[in-house]
């Protein structure tokens, strides 16, 4: 199974860093979509099937927490796997995020810490990811 992924962050540079980490994670990828805020992310979700979303919290227009609330309300998207990638440090807010069934990765992250969380959420083992990463035609930037 190859995953369709949505990366939501108002920073184009951060989206690029997350996409590069995804590509080196060994997780088989099909489509990678990007959105700069929660509202744009909902538009992507309305038009494309997405298996995994990586979501920032502090964003203009609609923040990540509001996005996850909307995703969980919609029967089509409520089971979407979500990883929050954020500087957020408030225990109260992190608890709310976890209560939505999302995983949490704190910025600044190392590529390995994000990769391990992605593998955990997708259920891909290190061995499986290694075989994908070494498969001919793989696209890994570092």
């Amino acid at each position, binding site marked *: 199974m190859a995953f369709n992924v949505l990366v939501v962050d108002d920073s184009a540079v951060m989206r690029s860093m997350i996409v590069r980490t995804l590509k080196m994670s060994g997780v088989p990828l099909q489509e990678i979509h990007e959105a700069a805020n929660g509202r744009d992310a909902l538009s992507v979700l309305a038009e494309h099937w997405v298996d995994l979303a990586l979501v920032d919290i502090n964003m203009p227009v609609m923040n990540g927490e509001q996005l996850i609330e909307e995703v969980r309300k919609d029967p089509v998207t409520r089971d979407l796997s979500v990883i929050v990638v954020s*500087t957020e*440090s408030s225990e109260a807010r992190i608890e709310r995020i976890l209560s939505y069934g999302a995983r949490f990765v704190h910025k600044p992250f190392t590529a390995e810490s994000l990769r391990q969380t992605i593998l955990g959420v997708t259920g891909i083992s290190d061995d499986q990811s290694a075989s994908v990463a070494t498969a001919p035609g793989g696209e890994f930037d570092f």
Partner: protein
Amino acid sequence: MTNLLQSRLRQAASSTFEDLGFVFPEEDLEDHQAAAPLAWSAVVAFRGPVHGTLEIRVSDGVAEQLATNMLGLASPPEGSLKRDALGEMANVVCGNVVPALGSPDAVFDLAAPDVTEIATAAGAHPVEGVIALAFGVENGRAEVRLTVSEAPAGVGS
């Protein structure tokens, strides 16, 4: 409290520059680093139990290096991505410093980074009333400044 904030600011800035920007800040500046003009400023305003700003100022070469490293490029990207990279650095440092200003349950909202080019004269004069650190980075320098506009309740200085 000032020492605690300074320590937290140093830790947040160091880990962000290293883990996100893939550069290694040094607190002992060499002469050529200290002389490098500060060219870019990224300010993140925060609101919560206390309000304030976190600012990162860097010389032009540092801004280019950060953007190049963060994007995994061989040469510096165009201007908007350079601004974006510096803004994200400020956002992450801010997010890691503000917990020291409130209880573990305190919620802080961070505004979008405001990234501007700064005049050499403005960059040369420190603003009063801030906790500031200076680092040598590659062939330039960086300053990180925390301004708190309301004192945390029940905390002495």
